């Protein structure tokens, strides 16, 4: 086992060394212009069971990661506003069976994981020589073992091999020389498929890590923010704006491992939502949302059954108090949701956090997962008003569905510039705002 660890460490260091050595003149220029760093980190952590059944697999084990990233230097305005964050990608590997307690069940049931995720690492306090940072990354993970109701039923954390990998770490970075930094961190790495294939309680690992980060060329001096020549509609122009966002997202769910049915069939989830948001700082917006969600996998819930004539639900009649079978259509299963929303913007990329309630407006609204939900979305402004989004709906950490789609934003200014005594559109705005 120790030999395996040594092999892993040597491999990582070799990759690091190769990256340093194999570069020609053009690469050097690119590396120098972009403040590129490489980092190798060794973790030691434990499996955190947020579901009691998974406590069977409690163990300590090592993990390894290798990252390539840019230490931003203020090329864009938001970089300076966020205190020059680090942006890059990490490759992560952990073998759950490589534990020091000799708990062989862990390896058999959970196997190992390979993940690659882009990340952004925000400096919180400190300066370039010594700073605390918060790293947040989302990407893809591959787990070698997943749930099977006959052969691997005790691993009911994860129902699929391919999953989302999420990392959240608090780090301390100490400069050793002009190009070398040491990094110490504690963090959580989470794997989940967003309930695309049930069961999906998720795998969590907490770990402490130590690593070395190296600038491939001498670091650049940070640029201070200058006056922006133009604001795009999704950016804050120091005026007051509100926007109405219309989204459509589609997701897919396979519930065969828990609720039965064809193991290859994926039920679709349709999410129509609208958000009314007001911008109140350069990078923050907040508001309310209303959404309609049609989750077709609800027809496989207990007391639901489907035949040629449609969907039937066995429910207690509120008038008579007796159980009866109702014939319903898919639209009657649609959930109506209300939410409070906060958005954080970095150039074209935004994070949206929603906290909301399912409103029970008819007898067939399924509230078995709870009537309070949380939704996290990532948006990318493809054009000025059109964006692509990826959203994850959860009920207190338990994923319900993952959906992706497109949206359109209607921007509206409600601030009058009294200083100039005239209403004017900010530079870069589309013509349709001229009526303001």
């Amino acid at each position, binding site marked *: 086992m120790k030999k395996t660890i040594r092999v892993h460490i040597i491999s990582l260091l070799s990759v690091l060394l190769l990256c340093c050595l194999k570069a020609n003149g053009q690469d050097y220029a690119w590396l120098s212009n972009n403040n590129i760093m490489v980092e190798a980190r060794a973790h030691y952590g434990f499996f955190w069971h947020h579901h009691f*059944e998974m406590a*069977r697999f409690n163990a300590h084990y090592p993990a390894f990661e290798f990252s390539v990233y840019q230490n931003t230097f203020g090329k864009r305005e938001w970089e300076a506003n966020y205190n020059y964050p680090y942006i890059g990608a990490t490759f992560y590997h952990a073998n759950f069976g490589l534990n*020091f307690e000799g708990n062989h069940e862990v390896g058999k049931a959970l196997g190992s994981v390979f993940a690659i995720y882009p990340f952004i690492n925000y400096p919180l306090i400190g300066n370039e020589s010594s700073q605390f940072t918060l790293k947040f990354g989302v990407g893809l993970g591959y787990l070698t073992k997943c749930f099977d109701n006959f052969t691997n039923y005790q691993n009911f954390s994860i129902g699929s091999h391919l999953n989302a990998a999420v990392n959240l770490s608090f780090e301390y970075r100490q400069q050793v020389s002009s190009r070398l930094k040491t990094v110490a961190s504690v963090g959580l790495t989470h794997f989940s498929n967003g309930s695309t294939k049930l069961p999906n309680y998720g795998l969590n690992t907490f770990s402490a890590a130590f690593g070395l980060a190296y600038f491939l060329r001498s670091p650049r001096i940070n640029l201070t923010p200058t006056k922006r020549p133009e604001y795009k509609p999704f950016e804050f122009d120091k005026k007051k704006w509100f926007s109405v966002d219309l989204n459509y997202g589609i997701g897919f769910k396979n519930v065969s491992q828990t609720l039965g049915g064809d193991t290859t069939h994926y039920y679709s989830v349709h999410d129509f939502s609208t958000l009314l948001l007001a911008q109140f700082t350069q990078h923050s917006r907040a508001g309310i949302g209303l959404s309609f969600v049609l989750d077709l996998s609800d027809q496989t819930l207990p007391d639901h059954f489907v035949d040629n004539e449609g969907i039937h639900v066995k429910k207690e009649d509120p008038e008579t108090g007796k159980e009866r079978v109702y014939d319903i259509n898919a639209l009657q299963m649609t959930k109506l949701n209300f939410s409070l929303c906060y958005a954080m913007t970095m150039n074209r990329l935004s994070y949206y956090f929603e906290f909301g309630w399912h409103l029970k407006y008819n007898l067939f609204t399924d509230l078995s997962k709870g009537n309070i939900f949380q939704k996290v979305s990532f948006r990318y402004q493809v054009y000025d008003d059109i964006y692509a989004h990826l959203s994850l709906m959860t009920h207190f950490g338990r994923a319900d569905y993952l959906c992706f789609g497109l949206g359109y934003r209607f921007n509206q200014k409600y601030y009058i510039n009294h200083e100039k005594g005239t209403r004017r559109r900010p530079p870069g705005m589309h013509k349709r705002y001229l009526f303001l």
Partner: protein
Amino acid sequence: MKKALAAVLLACISVICSCNKFTIGNETVAVQDITVPFQVIEFHDDVNVRLLHCDANHPAGHIQIKAGEHLINDISAEIQKTNEIVGHDTLYKLIIQNNNSGNFLHTYDYSIEMTVYYDTLYSLVFNSNAKNIVTDTLRGFYYPTHFTQDTLEWDSLAPNLLIELDGGSGDFNVLTNCYRVTTKFLHGTSCITTKGSATIASTFADYDCHGIIDSRELESHIHYVTSYGTNTIYAKTFSLLKASNYNIGRIYYVKYDKKTYDYIPDEGDWGWITHHCPEKKELIGDNIKPLVE
């Protein structure tokens, strides 16, 4: 900056110094005697339990706990009054728990062993991740029962045993010899093996069940199986099996009697039955089948 660093370091050091759980300590044995008679036992956490019938040397309620000295104080076996009344008796339950926290600080390579001596048991409730819970022969608890299972109705003063799995991922072995044994698997990934004999055995698995119910060594005359789970159930019976499967789990049966009957639903004939939920038959398929060893 330096002050902030020093504060964080000091906080970490003080937390670490206040915690003695970096090791589990030397193995220690503690003894506890409970005088209140109990009829129900609830198993929690990761305590491996052995249930033994009381004898002259070990009265009912005598408990032995073996664990590391840093853990043993937080392992509890407490009596609680239940709301359940059987006949004129109020039932009391023994709750076995491991209340140690911060376990990630020490090795997970340890075990907590407990031996409990009992007199009469009516119910075992498992919500445990223990890898070994073994029982002596359980004779059940006598109380008047009115059975109304479908068309079979009768009154009985018979020993009954109720086994409930309400979470956890443990391995449980229950040896029993009583009139009726009911196994209710409500939630979890546990594996339960029942052995011995029962006139009537009832097995129920709910939607969120993923573990195995193995009754291959439980010799029953009549066995009712109802499964809403995705798990595997093994059943053995002399004369009658009524199995209803509402999900993708499998029910394997062992026919003790060579004579095989077909189910004729309208005529109410009893025999070997393969009964599907008609509404979901297409989804489930034929998952009730004889076990081929």
